[in-house]
């Protein structure tokens, strides 16, 4: 009892069967049949972006704030190539995205036709998997399989390239239950013997630490609940990567704050000095490890990850556990409880005393000012004035992103959307649009720098058209702040092209789009201005003029280990050696 329909109709039918409610896209010649089908139905909402890159970032924001896959529909050629940055971003941060691209008709493939590009070739290294569908009979099954691949195992972006003649031709529709999913079936249950060895190590450990990443959030709500239970029951300290913020509440008393290059002093020193490191869904990124040879030199390391290629990639671990975080934590808690809930209480008490000493360093302290708005102060006030709201934060990339990670606090997962692995300037604004689409009544704020924000500012049109009241909180220092900071530390204060000249008047820009613009430069006015932004029912561009030469601390200089952090006010001249300067 297969239904016969056109390929274009099949796309809409398959998306509906997959429970898709929103598609972010941009039409063009090679997807016109699909757009014609979208026009003739009301179940799937289409959000017209102003640039295909923004469609993918919006889908990422949607996916990360809901746990559901984000869907993108773009045309062939430039539509597809514009999506490449978003695909790479989603691949690096393991975000489930399904991108549908139009393609020139099969009989024209290879002829350098108008708006032809080798889309599956171009996107092969930046997708988890991709398909070129040449037969309408295979189309619906391929779409169902694409959703399966994108959302299972380590999530990631997938792409389906659909030639225009395949969209016009008729074929038989296969519904998801009858679709062949192939052999792709990632392992989710961890090895019980390895988990038991980890429990034994946890019972003995004198200086344990949980080091958690985005994998905990990707694993789902069960994983974050189990993590919370495990941390509370054991009393072990916990730190997280940029991607994992919110998996354990920042208000929890076991929370050490973010670790890594701009992570907290206590978190990094605890990583350096621990005797048992329990990595849950993080990947020993170079922003985390610093100098590999000196990374946490005296610890036993356990690593739970669903991706076998993440284990032993850069750091050799003693206890590799392949599996889904929720499944592994469930077994871990069960075994630990059945063995009598043992921990090394004396060792833990001393360990916490040491951590409390490190906390006294107060590594996020900065020189306050009554004349200019310090970016840290702006974020502290934003935190204070928004923390009781149903709040979602996205960011762009740079200093403001690190300050946001340091000063904004997340008590729940899926509230923090940032471009971690790829570091994509221009991510935050479209991501905020995707988040707001999924949470229409929530307060969605994009913490931005003025340079990043300009990279996708065209999306003001999208926000206005779909009445998405996203707040663009721009920390405007008229600089590429992080680039400027590195030039100060590494390149003899030669600030090559790191300042923003000819900036627009952001208030007038907002007004040109029909939105509200607010500018603030006086710390005394900041609270009122932020409240005005929160209370305005519609998109706001908030131009927060901040101190121009503030550096982001703490900082582990390139190529240095965790115990060689720079704190604010340190003499930073020549802090980074020639070898470190090679790094980004």
């Amino acid at each position, binding site marked *: 009892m297969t239904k016969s329909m056109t390929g274009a109709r099949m796309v809409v039918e398959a998306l509906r069967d997959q429970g898709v409610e929103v598609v972010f896209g941009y039409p063009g010649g090679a997807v016109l049949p699909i757009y014609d089908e979208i026009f003739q139905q009301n179940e799937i909402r289409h959000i017209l972006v102003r640039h295909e890159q923004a469609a993918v970032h919006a889908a990422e924001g949607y996916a990360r704030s809901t746990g559901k896959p984000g869907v993108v529909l773009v045309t062939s050629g430039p539509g597809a190539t514009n999506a490449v940055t978003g695909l790479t971003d989603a691949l690096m941060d393991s975000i489930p995205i399904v991108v549908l691209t139009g393609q020139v008709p099969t009989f024209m493939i290879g002829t350098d036709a108008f708006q032809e590009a080798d889309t*599956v*070739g171009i996107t*092969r*290294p930046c997708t*988890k*998997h991709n398909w*070129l569908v040449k037969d309408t009979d295979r189309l619906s099954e391929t779409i169902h399989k694409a959703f399966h*691949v994108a959302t299972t195992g380590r999530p990631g972006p997938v792409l389906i390239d659909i030639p225009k003649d395949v969209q016009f031709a008729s074929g038989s529709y296969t519904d998801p239950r009858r679709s062949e999913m*192939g*052999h*792709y079936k990632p392992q989710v249950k961890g090895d019980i013997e390895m988990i038991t060895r980890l429990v034994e190590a946890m019972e003995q450990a004198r200086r344990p630490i949980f080091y958690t990443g985005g994998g905990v959030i990707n694993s789902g709500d069960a994983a974050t609940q189990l993590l919370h239970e495990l941390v509370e029951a054991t009393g072990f300290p916990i730190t997280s990567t940029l991607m994992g913020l919110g998996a354990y509440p920042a208000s929890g008393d076991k929370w050490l704050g973010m670790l890594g290059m701009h992570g907290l002093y206590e978190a990094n020193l605890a990583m350096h000095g621990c005797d048992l490191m329990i990595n849950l869904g993080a990947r020993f990124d*170079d922003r985390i*490890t*610093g*100098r*590999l*040879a000196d990374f946490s030199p005296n610890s036993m390391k356990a690593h739970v990850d669903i*991706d*076998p*290629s993440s*284990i*032993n*990639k*850069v750091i*050799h671990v003693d206890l590799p556990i392949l599996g889904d975080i929720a499944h592994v934590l469930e077994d871990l808690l069960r075994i630990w409880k059945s063995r009598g809930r043992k921990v090394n209480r004396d060792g833990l008490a001393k360990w916490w005393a040491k951590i409390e000493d490190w906390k006294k*360093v*107060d590594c996020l*302290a900065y020189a306050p000012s009554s004349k200019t708005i310090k970016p840290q102060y702006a974020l502290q006030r934003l935190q204070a004035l928004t923390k009781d709201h149903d709040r979602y934060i996205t960011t762009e990339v740079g200093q403001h992103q690190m300050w946001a990670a340091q000063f904004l606090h997340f008590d729940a997962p899926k509230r923090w959307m940032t471009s971690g692995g790829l570091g994509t300037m221009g991510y935050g604004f479209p991501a905020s649009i995707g988040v707001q689409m999924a949470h229409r009544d929530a307060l969605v704020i994009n913490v931005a720098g003025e340079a990043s924000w300009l990279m996708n500012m065209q999306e003001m049109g999208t926000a206005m058209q779909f009445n998405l009241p996203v707040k663009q909180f721009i920390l405007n220092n008229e600089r590429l702040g992080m680039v400027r900071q590195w030039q100060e530390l590494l390149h003899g204060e030669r600030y090559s092209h790191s300042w923003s000249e000819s900036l627009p008047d952001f208030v007038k820009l907002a007004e040109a789009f029909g939105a509200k613009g607010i500018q603030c430069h006086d710390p005394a006015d900041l609270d009122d201005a932020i409240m005005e932004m929160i209370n305005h029912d519609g998109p706001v561009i908030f131009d927060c003029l901040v101190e121009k030469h503030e550096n982001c601390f703490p900082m582990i*200089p*390139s*190529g*240095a280990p965790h115990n*060689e*952090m*720079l*704190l*604010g*006010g*340190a*003499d930073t001249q*020549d*802090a*980074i*050696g*020639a*070898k*470190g300067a*090679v*790094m980004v």
Partner: protein
Amino acid sequence: MSALRLKKGLSKHSAYDLRDPNAEVIESHTLAVIVDNEAGVLARVIGLFSGRGYNIESLTVAEVDHLGHLSRITIVTKGTPQVIEQIKAQLGRIVPVHEVHDLTVEGPSVERELALFKVAGQGDKRIEALRLAEIFRANVVDSTLESFVFEMTGMPQKIDAFADLMRPLGLIEVARTGVAALARGT
């Protein structure tokens, strides 16, 4: 705020130095990868090697199960033990890859390569080429008054050795298939 005293200029490695100081031994491994025989699957495998900077010493691919649409890719690669492990994990992550076997560590295996050699010459050189070909159990598959094409199957080292011997005798062209390998026993 108390500033930490930073030891300046001590950075010996960048954070991108992925080498394991304890495992600098470069090993050669033969991998057998069973994949769906679909468009682009070879590009995925090759793209993985070029994109992540791994070596390919030899690569062969052909369909081995027509009904099951399965192909077998045999790759000879070189790297430190950590890199070899990473290559296998990365290959396993490719969606159309069914199995990854490291024949070098999974037990005894047989490796064979087929090669064709065109040797041109006259007089004593021609006679010597033919004599050596018999010693190496190479077959003559084409012959003119001025040339031979020899066909030979064997371990890559044997093919290398034969090529070295033929070079002064008028070797003008070589075609090699790359290594095909199977585990011994059942």
